[in-house]
């Protein structure tokens, strides 16, 4: 979710520490894995929000530098998920760049559903929303991704066409 190996490691350690400290207060209303997922997702969302705030500040300071810069996806940092198989790495790179532009809750739903492959009911429990609300979030995330990916396809097609002509 955070798309940075170092941050992901930090967050997972923080999650372990939080679990270690507050496991006594675990009520058992949900399964232990759901509870741990909830802590993890909350920490990731907190991290993404703080990163967004920092980016907003740096956006104003580097406004002039950004002028003329190409828009997404070229401005995003590269990220390689270690679990993605080699033949899908390029596509997954495009997906992660697009995912990075989604709102945090949509991103969380997509990651939990498509990457973690969790059942819808568990995702709803993790995010503390109803199953219907979760489904709606997932639909919105997919729709947003489609909108963001369509121009990438067109550009790749054009690039391919140009390189074929050369």
């Amino acid at each position, binding site marked *: 979710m955070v798309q940075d190996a170092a941050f992901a490691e930090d967050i997972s350690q923080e999650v372990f520490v939080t679990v270690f400290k507050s496991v006594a207060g675990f009520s058992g209303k949900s399964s232990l894995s759901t509870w741990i997922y909830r802590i993890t997702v909350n920490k990731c969302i907190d991290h993404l929000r703080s990163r967004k705030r920092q980016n907003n500040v740096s956006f104003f300071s580097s406004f002039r530098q950004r002028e003329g810069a190409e828009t997404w996806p070229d401005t995003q940092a590269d990220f390689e998920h270690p679990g993605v198989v080699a033949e899908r790495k390029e596509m997954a790179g*495009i997906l992660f760049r697009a995912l990075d532009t989604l709102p945090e809750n949509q991103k969380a739903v997509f990651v939990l559903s498509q990457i973690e492959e969790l059942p819808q009911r568990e995702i709803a429990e993790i995010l503390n929303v109803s199953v219907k609300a979760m489904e709606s979030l997932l639909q919105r995330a997919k729709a947003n991704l489609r909108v963001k990916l369509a121009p990438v396809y067109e550009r790749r097609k054009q690039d391919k066409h140009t390189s074929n002509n050369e």
Partner: protein
Amino acid sequence: MLILKGIMKQEQWIEEVMNSAAGARRAEPPANFTEAFMLRINGMPEKQATIIPLKWAVAAAIVMVTLNVAVLTAYSTNAMHGGNSPHVTTANTDDYNTEVVYKY
């Protein structure tokens, strides 16, 4: 027909991209992850319960009692010598609804 084919191709590509990370959860954590975690856990400052020594606790209690006695003495002496005596107003109990109704 050609446009439709193009749209279908685009849809197919988008679907492929959206499913490209499916199953990525099976990734193994880096080799040094456990080590780094243990280092972090061990490096955390331990919380120690602060136990007040018995003699300090007794001394604090004596001080508190002495202060209380001193205040009471000063107050009563002041009252005897015509100072402001404690004035207690008794509220009109009719103003209060003393009956409590529980709703279950």
